[in-house]
């Protein structure tokens, strides 16, 4: 068991995979950094310090520093995967996915299906997402909802260093394209990571708090905010299940339904705006499959239907907080 930061879990898991499997290739903007400068190469090692030391260890053919060309980065990952490699592409910010969306949505997600199952495309596309840095509308977004809506992709949202390791290993062992969403606010979070060769299968949620009165469902950064709300409620003798989905595609429907069948009360927390979101998706699931268990209307704590604002006060108002989650929980608990 070792204590490590989320970003180090990303880096060390990829490093270990590259040592173990020469098919693993990393590509992206500044994954080496400093190429073509007096200070480089390896002046950066990834803007999130998730590829520090890779270039020296594995060289330019396996640590491919790319120009700012998101379509070409994702497309090249697709081509590498079709040609038998295991590429891990980094989009510096999830917001840049718009530039490369065709390659994600029309290409890598669909190769296997369009080609009648004859090909695999084990490309991992990592990207940093989420708000809280006053980075405004084009560097703060959560993108999991529309990626989850794309058949052919798997979507992973680790909330702890341990989950980073287990889920990234699982992604590397599989043969499907994986979107790996790393929350910017989590990179500096430290946690225990068990030793040994283990993975976390996709579609298996983690119960981080157990209780009989209310179910809280979340992903990524929102998990810790749910935990904070649950801990506050516990002081009043209210017990919450906090479910960290870990992957939104596939999604552990059973964990949600099993919990709601006990608690009868659900608050879904989502960092993205609510319309056509993961929150509405989960609400629909529960309304359809656990209707008889519900003791109160489902509440959703989400971002509002606006772009992510810049100013401190505005962004605080925008993002779901522990206080907002607690308030929603009390509303659900107070119903009738």
């Amino acid at each position, binding site marked *: 068991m070792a204590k490590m930061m989320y970003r180090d879990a990303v880096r060390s898991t990829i490093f270990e995979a590259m040592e173990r499997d020469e098919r693993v290739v990393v590509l992206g903007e500044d994954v080496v950094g400093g190429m073509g400068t007096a200070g480089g190469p390896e002046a950066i090692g990834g803007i999130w310090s998730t590829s520090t030391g890779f270039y020296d260890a594995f060289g330019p*053919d396996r640590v491919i520093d*790319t*120009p700012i060309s998101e379509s070409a980065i994702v497309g*090249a990952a697709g*081509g*590498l995967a079709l*040609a038998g490699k295991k590429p891990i592409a980094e989009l510096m910010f999830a917001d840049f996915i718009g530039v490369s969306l065709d390659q994600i949505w029309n290409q890598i997600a669909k190769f296997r299906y369009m*080609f009648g199952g004859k090909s695999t495309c084990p490309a991992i596309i990592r990207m940093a997402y989420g708000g809280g840095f006053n980075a405004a509308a084009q560097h703060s977004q959560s993108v999991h909802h529309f990626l989850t809506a794309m058949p052919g992709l798997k979507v992973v949202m680790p909330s702890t260093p341990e989950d980073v390791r287990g889920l990234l290993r699982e992604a590397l062992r599989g*043969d499907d394209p994986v979107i790996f969403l790393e929350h910017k606010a989590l990179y500096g979070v430290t946690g225990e990571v068990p030793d040994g060769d283990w993975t976390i299968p996709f579609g298996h949620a983690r119960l981080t708090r157990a209780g009989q009165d209310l179910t809280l469902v979340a992903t990524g950064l929102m998990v810790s905010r749910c935990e904070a709300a649950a801990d506050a409620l516990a002081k009043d003798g209210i017990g919450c299940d906090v479910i960290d989905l870990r992957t939104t595609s596939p999604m552990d429907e059973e964990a949600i339904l099993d919990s709601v069948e006990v608690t009868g009360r659900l608050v879904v927390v989502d960092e993205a705006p609510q319309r056509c979101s993961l929150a509405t998706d989960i609400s629909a699931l529960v309304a359809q499959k656990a209707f008889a268990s519900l003791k109160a209307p489902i509440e959703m704590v989400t971002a509002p239907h606006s772009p992510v604002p810049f100013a401190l006060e505005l962004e605080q108002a925008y993002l779901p907080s522990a206080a907002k989650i607690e308030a929603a929980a009390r509303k659900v608990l107070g119903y009738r």
Partner: protein
Amino acid sequence: MQLSREQMLQAYRRMKIIREFEERLHIDIATGAIAGFTHLYCGQEAVAVGVCEHLDTDDKIVSTHRGHGHCLAKGCDVDGMMKEIWGSREGLCKGKGGSMHIADVDVGMLGANGIVGAGAPIAVGAALAAKLDGKGKVAITFSGDGACNQGTTFEAMNMAVVTKAPCIFVFENNHYSEHTGFEYAVGTQQDIASRAEAFGMRVWRADGTDFFAVHETMRELLEYVRAGNGPAAVEFDTERFFGHFEGDPQRYRGEGELDRIRETRDCLKKFRASVVSAKVLTDADLDTIDAEVLDQIEAAVVAARAAPRPTSEDVLADVYVAY
């Protein structure tokens, strides 16, 4: 380079297969027997075959919406392709892809593509894989004069140059991007190769209706790329004998244009004239192939018509390896 008699016969047969495959599709689509959107390659056969005759299965190609020719030239099965286009579950892609998404990774064919310009980045990735393997293999992306205007093509060209990927950008200038003329849509009003040159690549140009010109150009180009000199590009001037899609009324064509290009720019006619006048092959040699190919295509259609259809149970198959 002098081609052997066998090589010439094989090249002619491959071009003829593409031609008759497409001419037959044109008929079966018009009658409504085949559903969907189809873009015929007919007229450009010398490019696909002149390029792919140099490749083996470890060399990769990425194709376009007008991809049947590239697929056939790279070795995709004729029957499997016909069944795919007819939508059978025995098709090369089990009826999941259809005309625009034919692929066979086992022969190094990484997919036709319904999105214009989407193939170039994928080819760069395949080329990076080849570079990593270090066996002198290449990846080729076919692009038209339409795809040469897409940002993805620009990104891919730059990335290939920066990473010294053994990627070859084959531009087939058939003078029409969908229904718009090259002279309008390519802002340089020059050629496409000069654009690739501006990205820092060595470029070649040749008449894409002359099989021997294509073949010789590619011999030189491939020698250069396989030697580890990074990417290269080539522009082939060619002709599209049908519309953008099947059913296209082609009102943008000039008076008598289709007759003229069929008469003067037909790569199969030019091939025949060239080899017969040089006395390396006879009309009889080629006539024999013509007859055999017609029979082969007829048999492929008969098989495709009779092939089993997919069922609703097949919809969810192959979305994921495991989910």
